[in-house]
Every structure is written in C-alpha cells, then in structure tokens.
C-alpha cells in the first residue's frame, strides 16, 4: 500500500502516463479503435441479432465520440482535438484512409469485372449518378450553393467513403465531410435493415437482380448485410458489383460529376 500511494501520483502525473500515451498517440488511437469495434461487434450480435453490421455501429460510435470531443474541446476535429487522442486524426486522416481504400481494390479480379456484364455496369453507373443527383439536390434544398459542398454531400449519398474522398479532393470543410459521412451511414443502415422487407417487392430473389441491387446501392457493408438477411446465397453477387461502386465513385465524384455540378451551379 505504501508503495502504491507512492507511485500512483507519479504515474498519473503530467510527466508520466499521460505524456506516454500522448507521445504514442497513434498507438493509443489503434487501441481505441480496436476497442470501439469490439464493442460494435458485441452490440451488433446481442442487440440487433447481426442485422446491423458492426462497421455501421462502429462508424456511428465514432461520430458520437467526435461530437463529444467537439463539445468538450471546442475544436473542429472531433476526438482528435483531445491531445491524448490526437492519433485518431492521423489514423483517420486522408493519408491512411486513401491507402486503405486503394488496397480494397486488390481483391478485385479483372475477369470478374467483365463477368459482371452489361447489366452490372449500367446499374453501377446509374446507381452512382442517381445518388449524387439526389444527395446534391437535398444539399441544395438545405441551402448549400457551392459546387464543392453539393458534390461532397452527393458523394456521401453514394457511400460514406466516396463522400470524404471527394470532399478532401475538393477541399471542403470538415463539417461538410461529416455530413457526407452521416448521409452515407444512414444509407448503409437503411440498406441493411430494409432489404429483407422489400426484397419481394423489388424481385430480389435471383443472382441477376442481386447483382443489379449491389450496383445500384453500392454500400458494400449495407449490401452484404442486407442480402445476408434476405438470402445468403445472393451475397457474393451483390457484393461483387458493390465493391466496384466505391472505386468508380471516387473516380467520378471529384472529376466528371464535380465538373457537371460546377457547370450547373
């Protein structure tokens, strides 16, 4: 006891434990994100019976933490403004994010892409343009008038990845990027939960419609979880086209679509 009372203040003091964690903030961030995803997986299984994918819960917790961080620090970078957790900003910054997104393309085979066929390609292109169009219109309706913000929010309506990638390419504020992530998250959760209920109405009972569904929806986690809850056999077909969606969205968003929006606004 005597020993404990001796070293505890030193350990918690400004010059030891806190400084140690601050110095290793990227590692602290890795641990924290791992803990968040562990909790998300548990919540996904226990509370939703696996219906809502852990990734969606994890992103929601991340946004909630960013809110708390923003309130407590008054800063603009969510949890990353807490000096102990500055590593969150590094881990979730555009450098690592873009690297990880590019890496996801590695699983894609060229012959799979051609096997997707015409209907897959049409559904992909249509899905991306419709999402950008509706997201952009909603952004305009809510008072956004600059092409950059409209494109970014439209990109968020595509997926919560296309949003921030487009947003950082177009140099928009963190607030607009957060909005695009939130819009993508709403989409992803809706696709997960709604799909089994509407499957009958939209004829989602064969590989071909699953393939089209994946291309139109695009959110990989949403499509995979939604199809799994509908008919597990359909998952690979939907997931296959959905994996192309993010890449295509990241390619078209900050280029062709931005220029179209720019010419209209």
């Amino acid at each position: 006891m005597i020993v404990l009372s001796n070293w505890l203040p030193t350990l918690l003091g400004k010059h030891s434990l806190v400084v140690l964690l601050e110095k290793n903030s990227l590692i602290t961030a890795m641990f924290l994100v791992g803990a968040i995803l562990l909790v998300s997986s548990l919540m996904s299984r226990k509370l939703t019976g696996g219906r809502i994918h852990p990734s969606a819960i994890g992103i929601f917790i991340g946004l909630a933490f960013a809110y708390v961080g923003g309130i407590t620090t008054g800063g603009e970078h969510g949890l990353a403004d807490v000096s102990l957790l500055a590593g969150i900003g590094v881990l979730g910054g555009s450098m690592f994010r873009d690297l990880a997104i590019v890496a996801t393309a590695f699983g894609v085979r060229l012959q799979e892409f051609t096997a997707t066929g015409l209907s897959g390609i049409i559904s992909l292109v249509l899905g991306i343009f419709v999402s950008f169009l509706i997201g952009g219109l909603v952004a305009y309706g809510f008072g956004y008038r600059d092409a950059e913000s409209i494109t970014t929010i439209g990109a968020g309506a595509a997926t919560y990845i296309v949003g921030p990638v487009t947003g950082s390419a177009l140099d928009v504020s963190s607030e607009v990027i957060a909005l695009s992530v939130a819009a993508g998250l709403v989409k992803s959760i809706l696709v997960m939960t709604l799909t089994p209920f509407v499957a009958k109405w939209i004829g989602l009972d064969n590989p071909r419609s699953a393939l089209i569904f994946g291309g139109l929806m695009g959110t990989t986690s949403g499509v995979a979880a939604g199809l799994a809850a509908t008919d597990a056999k359909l998952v690979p077909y939907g997931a296959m086209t959905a994996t192309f969606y993010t890449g295509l969205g990241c390619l078209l968003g900050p280029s062709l679509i931005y220029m179209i929006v720019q010419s209209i606004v």
Partner: protein
Amino acid sequence: MVIYGTALLAFCMLVGLVAGQLLGILLGVGKNVGGVGIAMLLLIVLSDWLRRRDRLPTPTQQGVLFWSSIYIPIVVAMAASQNVVKAASGGWLALVAGVTTVLACLALVPVLSRLGTGGEDNPESQSGAKE
C-alpha cells in the same frame, strides 16, 4: 517479402494522386481529380498482371491485404475526427439525403432487372447471372 506488397500499394496510390493532381491542373480546377479512383484501377491492373505471371506470392499479397482489412477501423477513426458538432445542426440533411437515395435506388432495381430480361439473347448479362 511483405513490404513488396505494401510498396506496390504505395506506388499505385502515389501514381494515382500525381495523375489526379495533373488532371486537376490540366482541367483548370486545381484540385485532385479522381486520384484515389485512378490508383484503384492501377492496382487492379498491376496485381492482375503480376498474378498471371506468378509474381505475386502470399507474403507480397499480405502486404496489401493488411491495409485493405484495416479499412473499416480507419473509417471509424476518420468518423471520430470530423467536425460533428457543426454537422449535427444539419443532421436532417443527412437523414433526408440517405433515405431518399435509398428509396430511389430500391425502386430502380425492378426497372433494371426487367430491362435485362427483355434482351435474353444478350450473352453478357447471362454469363453475369450464371457466375
């Protein structure tokens, strides 16, 4: 070696970003035009080429696969470092945008499915369905 895979990934990302930047200058928008997308396409093409020439052993693949499997955790970290306080005031926008997009795209599923079955002699769509 694992680092070969990571280096390949880094190479694709750098080339993509440089190409995106050049494209941005060329088009006069001064921004990075589709750099990440270009990098993804490059990685698909390069890894396919290497795989066919048997130059993609498991360790090399692991150097890329680690980063693709860490993608969701990074997105969680990204979400945690956004200006959510300010965005929350426009929370309705996110909700409206998400809901309307999903409904519109769901409605398009039967439309596109029907379009395809109209041309059943289309070999492309058939092979796509069978795979």
